[in-house]
């Protein structure tokens, strides 16, 4: 186990390093020199330009710049926003993160509570009407573009019926539409994946053995299938994090939800590349860390994984 843990951690560190190089490259590829990007529309004196150069080392070769940048990042300094002049990027992210977290946490819980039982039940009752109808729903849900569903919900519930606010995050009512969109999409995929994972368990020899020794089907399901299905089904979640973060970018933009997704898109729109760079780095790091934790939890619970 120790060998697996250290191997996996080492991999993770390497990937985060590569991720940081990629994020660093954003400022380099962006049109205009990094100094121009940081100045934006402001009127600046030569002294201020010199100060920027001193801090980020823009007059030095790129690997020195990378090292300067990553050292600053390690101290929590992602630079300053251009749009909101002088506001540290870190502060913007810290303000937006909880808003995004609330939105996604809520939709994730809802989708798990609904989709996983559906997926497991569909696999147990394979080829029944329940299986067919839930899988038709799931197939349709995967094909629906989430931002379009969002627009349709706004048209119906905000513009036509006037029940719910179309934008913002002011009251509990404003949660309903964006949470529904994110939850619906995640549900469609989770139901399908849980069905797949459970079907695999159903085909295992130990399930056949349990049946062969004369256990009642309900006991086979509850003791042998359900318990074993729960692990792969729950760990699916850990690997879904990158998709979930992708979803939140679009949905937050549609509903003007003041979280990371909207901050990211607005920064792209206004060429505030230091914010973009920071968000890309933070999101990718979250994904890498979540995947490692999922792998380790999986390996801890299921010893077969460790031996590779």
């Amino acid at each position: 186990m120790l060998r697996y843990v250290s191997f996996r951690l080492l991999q993770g560190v390497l990937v985060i390093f590569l991720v940081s190089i990629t994020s660093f490259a954003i400022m380099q590829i962006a049109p205009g020199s990094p100094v121009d990007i940081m100045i934006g529309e402001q009127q600046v004196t030569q002294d201020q330009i010199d100060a920027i150069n001193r801090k980020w080392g823009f007059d030095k070769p790129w690997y020195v710049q990378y090292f300067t940048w990553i050292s600053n990042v390690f101290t929590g300094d992602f630079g300053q926003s251009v749009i909101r002049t002088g506001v540290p990027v870190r502060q913007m992210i810290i303000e937006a993160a909880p808003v995004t977290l609330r939105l996604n946490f809520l939709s994730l819980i809802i989708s798990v509570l609904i989709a996983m039982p559906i997926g497991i039940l569909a696999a147990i009752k394979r080829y029944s009407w329940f299986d067919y109808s839930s899988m038709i729903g799931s197939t349709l849900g995967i094909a629906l573009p989430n931002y379009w569903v969002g627009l349709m919900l706004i048209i119906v519930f905000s513009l036509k019926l006037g029940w719910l606010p179309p934008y913002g995050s002011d009251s509990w009512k404003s949660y309903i539409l964006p949470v529904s969109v994110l939850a619906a999409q995640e549900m469609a995929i989770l139901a399908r994946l849980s069905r797949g994972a459970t079907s695999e368990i159903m085909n295992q020899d130990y399930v056949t053995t349990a049946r062969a020794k004369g256990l009642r089907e309900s006991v086979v399901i509850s003791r042998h299938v359900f318990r074993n299905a729960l692990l792969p089904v729950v760990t699916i979640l850990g690997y879904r994090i990158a998709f979930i973060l992708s979803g939140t970018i679009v949905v937050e933009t549609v509903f003007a939800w003041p979280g990371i997704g909207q901050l990211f898109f607005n920064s792209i729109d206004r060429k505030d590349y230091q914010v973009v760079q920071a968000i890309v780095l933070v999101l990718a790091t979250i994904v890498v860390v979540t995947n490692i934790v999922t792998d380790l939890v999986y390996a801890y619970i299921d010893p077969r994984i460790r031996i590779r």
Partner: protein
Amino acid sequence: MTEQSTTSSSSLSSPVSALDRAEGHQRSESARIWKRFRRYKPGMAGGIIVVILVFIAIFAPLIAPYSPTEKVGRRGTAPSSEFLLGNDEIGRDVLSRLIYGTRVALIVGIGAMSIALTIGVAIGAMAGFFGNKVDLALSRLIDTLMAFPLLALLITLAALFSPSLFNVVIVIGVTVWASYARVVRADIMSLRERDFVLAARSIGVGNARIIVRHMLPNVVGPIIVLASLDVGSIIILESALSFLGLGIQPPTPSWGGMLAAGRSLMRNAPHIAVAPGIAITITVLAFNLLGDGLRDALDPRQRD
């Protein structure tokens, strides 16, 4: 799936063909795949819709009742017998734009998929075949790509390079290849020690030829399935990019862009935003169902 091996001149270099007894078996194998594919009705339906969409894209000028880029009616008028899906925010015919939008969707879907497939298969095959250090390096490359939430990466790249049809195809193509690489890597790795590969190597066949002629034909099935599903997800990504204003630029009709433009008249003319969403859903659904059908048909474990 074993097409390559029957055309191979030496039967020794490819035992699969020896087992297959050439032509006759070949035909029955594809007939069996076709039979299995036909049996799965949703897959058939998906395939038929895809064929129809391709026709619509090719013959768009003949099918579309009006020009996709010219103002032909009053802005935002509701569907009528003259304009079946109504007029958009400028007064253009929504149906005609939808029909021409099929071209953009399929060009991006199939174009970006082909790029992703080429990169993914090449990297996956190298990682799987050479193993060790090559695998270690390439696998970290794959991990790094998978670490970024796809849309964050796509939006950033799309913003850095000026938006055009060509750039959208390239940008999506170079970001979505990880799934191919993973599948091909695992499959090639499992084939590495198989007898027919050792046999090929023992008579002096080079690495490149072993990969291309002997190993890849055995991985074609999963790649085809992945490609079909991929076209669907790429079309969603393209429409999301265009919806955010970073993809195909107006006046070129793209479904995502039409949706975005429809937002301004959402209250009074919701039909502008409804139609392209349905078009995207149907197209993505068709490719996904086709992919599912192909998966069942090409899976050698499936019984007839």
